[in-house]
Every structure is written in structure tokens, then in C-alpha cells.
């Protein structure tokens, strides 16, 4: 569905302040997949995702969406942005309109929909986001942090994108809020079959939800594989300043202590199953 071919991005090319964000990155993402993108601060994650909906232009290489080159001259980037939705870090800072509902209608209206259609979509997106109905008509600036975040995510969902890219959607929320937002994202895929790209630096979050994990390190694609395969490289991950999920460490320790479990487990559920098996409990 989305294919990146030999993407390279260099900031301030040709000046004294030249710096390379990433070089020669190629990958293919299929429809309906849940992709986790992780990497250390400054590994080029945020820059990379901004190429996928044409917000930034690559220095070399290109991106294909459904087989079409999005950086070709005649390609309609605005239409693309309706199909590839992007939720930035701290999206609540983009809220501006008088009411939550009007703010969420901003995207659909920009796509050229009528007021009624935009309203329909906004309402359905807001319900999906889990914000309570009595808040729809209040000012977005009266909401709490978590509620604002939901409203802002709804603002992107209302465009009914086929692909949704989220940059650290749970950053700055308390653990309860974190789980709720991540569950919301997981639900989106179940209910609407949206392709998801989740940027995060929490291995535990990514391990729990992603089908495949993309690891960026110093501007290069280090791994792009299923979680089990990626987490089997614990040492390499640590060298990149990343960590494996806590459960993978637990499995290692159990194995060292003589209790044999699968060393590549990454979520609490898997760990539970493995441990019960190891102790022969049914």
C-alpha cells in the first residue's frame, strides 16, 4: 500500500549546517497492517513519517502510495493527506476552533465535503475517539489534557484516512491515559481496518500491538520484522540505546535461573502462558 524506495533526506544540503536525517531507506507496508516504528531520539523517525504524506520532500528516492509516485509533478498531495492521516506529537496544540465539533470538521471541510457531510463524519469520529457527547459543543480549550488529545485525534480521523500515522500519541499522558489512547488506536484497526503506523520509543507498547516492527538507528533501517524476530536481537537493540520489552528480560532471567521458557516473548499475555507452561499448570 505504501512503499518507500531508497529514501534519503539531508537537512540544509550544501551549507555548513548540513546533516543527514536518514539514508537509503526502502520498505513496503501492506493494507491493514499495524506497524510499530521505534528508534532513539534523533534517529530520524519523525522526519521519515513526514515523507509518507508528502509534508517533506526527500533529497533522493521516492514514496509510492497504491502504486503511484506521490512526489510526481501532477500528484494531488492534498487528496493524499486525506487518505494518509497524520497525528503529530502533542496534537492538542493544533486545536483552534470555537467548539470541538467545528474543530473536528476542519479536515473534512478542507477535503471539499459539504457542511452536513463534514458534521456527520466529525460526529462519528468523535464517538469513535471516546470523547463524551456533552463535550462536543464546548470549547476545545476547556477540555482536560487527555480529552484534548482525543479531540485532536478525532480531527484527523474525521477525514476517514486509509492509513493513520501517529507520532507518540501517548506522550505526556498518565499510565491510564496511555493505555486508553493505545487501545483506541488498536480498535481503529479492528473496526475500520485502517493501516496504522505507530511511532513510539516504548518497546512494551509496540510489542503489544504491532504486527511488524521497524527499527531506525542513526538514519538507517536496522530491522523490519515481526516482534519476535526483532526482540531476539536484544544486544543490538541495547547498543542502539533501545531496550527490549520488560517481558523479554524476564524470560532471559528465568532461563538463567533454570526455568526454561521461550526467550523471545514480549507481552504480559505471552509471558503468562509460557510461565504457566513451564510450571505445568493448566
Amino acid at each position, binding site marked *: 500500500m505504501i512503499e518507500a524506495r531508497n529514501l534519503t533526506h539531508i537537512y540544509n544540503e550544501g551549507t555548513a549546517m548540513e546533516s543527514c536525517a536518514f539514508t537509503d531507506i526502502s520498505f513496503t507496508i501492506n493494507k491493514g497492517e499495524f506497524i510499530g516504528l521505534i528508534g532513539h531520539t534523533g534517529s530520524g523517525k519523525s522526519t521519515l513519517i513526514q515523507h509518507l504524506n508528502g509534508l517533506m520532500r526527500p533529497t533522493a528516492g521516492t514514496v509510492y502510495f497504491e502504486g503511484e509516485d506521490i512526489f510526481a509533478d501532477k500528484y494531488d498531495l492534498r487528496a493524499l*493527506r486525506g487518505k494518509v492521516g497524520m497525528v*503529530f506529537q502533542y496534537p492538542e*496544540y*493544533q*486545536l*483552534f476552533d470555537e467548539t470541538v465539533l467545528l474543530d473536528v470538521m476542519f*479536515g473534512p471541510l*478542507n477535503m471539499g465535503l459539504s457542511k452536513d457531510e463534514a458534521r456527520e463524519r466529525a460526529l462519528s469520529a468523535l464517538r469513535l475517539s471516546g470523547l463524551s457527547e456533552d463535550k462536543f459543543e464546548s470549547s476545545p480549550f476547556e477540555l482536560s489534557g487527555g480529552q484534548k488529545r482525543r479531540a485532536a485525534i478525532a480531527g*484527523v480521523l474525521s477525514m476517514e484516512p486509509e492509513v493513520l500515522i501517529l507520532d507518540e500519541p501517548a506522550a505526556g499522558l498518565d499510565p491510564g491515559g496511555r493505555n486508553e489512547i493505545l487501545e483506541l488506536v488498536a480498535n481503529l484497526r479492528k473496526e475500520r481496518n485502517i493501516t496504522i503506523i505507530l511511532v513510539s520509543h516504548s518497546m512494551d507498547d509496540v510489542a503489544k500491538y504491532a504486527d511488524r516492527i521497524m527499527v531506525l538507528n542513526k538514519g538507517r533501517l536496522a530491522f523490519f520484522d515481526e516482534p519476535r524476530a526483532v526482540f531476539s536481537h536484544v544486544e543490538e537493540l541495547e547498543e542502539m540505546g533501545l531496550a527490549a520489552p520488560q517481558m523479554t528480560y524476564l524470560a532471559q532471567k528465568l532461563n538463567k535461573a533454570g526455568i526454561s521458557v521461550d526467550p523471545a516473548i514480549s507481552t504480559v499475555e505471552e509471558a503468562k502462558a509460557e510461565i504457566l507452561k513451564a510450571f505445568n499448570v493448566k
Partner: protein
Amino acid sequence: MLRDITLGQYYPVDSVIHRLDPRTKLAGTFVFLVSLFVTKSIYGYVLATVFLAAVIMMSRVPVKFITKGLKAIVVLLIISVSFNIFLTEGTPIFTLGPLKATWEGLQTAGFMGIRLIYLVVGSSILTLTTTPNQLTGGLEKSMGFLRKIKVPVHEIAMMMSIALRFIPILVEETDKIMKAQTARGADFETGGLVKKAKAMIPLLVPLFISAFRRASDLAMAMEARCYHGGAGRTKMKPLKYHKRDFIAYVILLLYLAAMIVIKK
């Protein structure tokens, strides 16, 4: 998108000019600006050019970087130069409809243009070689005498340094919000004036809110560290004059004297 603002930008290299005390540089800039308005003869401009070129060379800031700041005044320059050419009385060169270009006008326009360019270049040398903090420190110290007549010098200097510090932050923030709204299909580029102005609302509202939020966070952080204004406040790096500063002052005085002598 918004990386081209050079005004108030610091160029980090080590040079004699960089190491001068900010007060010396402030005085130097002031003297240079005054000298531009004192002189009316061609020799005066030659001397000013030599002086400016020498300072630029000593500062080790690339000339390309300095002239970039001139882009901002191109429109102003064109308007004031053409006004001077056409609206000064004197010997006519040619007429353009109701407009009459004169030799005298051309001459004043030329001097005017040079003056404007030198003004901008001269003051950008100051900001390119002085960090915002040094600059406000220097201003605070040299304007200190105004405190006697109840001017809150320290407070003004503090506000200035905060404002300067916030320029890059707000530029970055604008960039971020612009991208977020573009991702929601906003269009900042096409359309007429009214449409463009309307398109700014989704950008300006969040920007103002974020500026106020940052300001209140900063106020809180300053209060938490017991900031209470200028009285009794000491500096970690107090400004001190060195030998090079005295030499610079002597050169400045000589320059100014020369400019006054050949003013005519």
C-alpha cells in the same frame, strides 16, 4: 519554511570582533550609524566603506551570510531610492509620464541607498558577532545611568533577552503547527488575500495559545528560582573591559573625527 530570518542571528566563530566587549560593539555600531548621517561627501563614504570592510574581514563572518539580511529591505530600498530620484528638484535627465528624474535626485538616491544598506549591514555585524545575552547585558550596563531617572533598565533588558530567545522557538512552533494543519488539508499558499488571511486562523490561534503557555511556564520557573527583578542581582560573568576594547575605542574616535573633518 521559515529558516531565512537572519535578523538577530548569531554566527558562532571566534574572532577579534566576537571577543570585544558588547558595550564596545554597541558604541561602535552607534558611532558608525551616526557617521553615516554626518557625512555628505564621497570621501566620507569611501572611508565608511573601508571601515566596514575591515570590520567584516576581522569578524570572519562570511559576506554571503551578511548580505542575506539585505533581502528583507529590498522593497524599502527600491521605494525610497525611486522616490528620491523622481521627487528631487533639479536638472532633469528624462521624464516618465508625470515623473521627472533629476541628476540631484540620482545623487541623493545613491547616497540614500548606500546609507540604508550600510545601516543594515552595520547593525547585523553587531548581532552576528554578539550573542543575545551579551547584547542585552551590554545594553543594561551602558544604559544603567537611566535608572537614576526611574527607568526600569534591568527589566527592559530582561524582556529583550527573553524576546530574542523566543524567536527561534516560535519559528519552530509555527513550522510544527503549519505542518499539523497541512496534514489536515489546510492550504496556506493558494487563494486571494481574504482566503489567505482566513487560512491563517488555524495557525495563529494555536500559536498565540502556545506563546502564552510558554510565557506563563517561564514566569513560574523564574519565580521558583527567586527572580525578583534587578535590585541586588549579581552576574556570573560580569562585563570587563580589556586592552582590545581600549584600542577599539581609540580607533572609533579617530574614525569619527576623520568623518567629521571631511564631512562637507
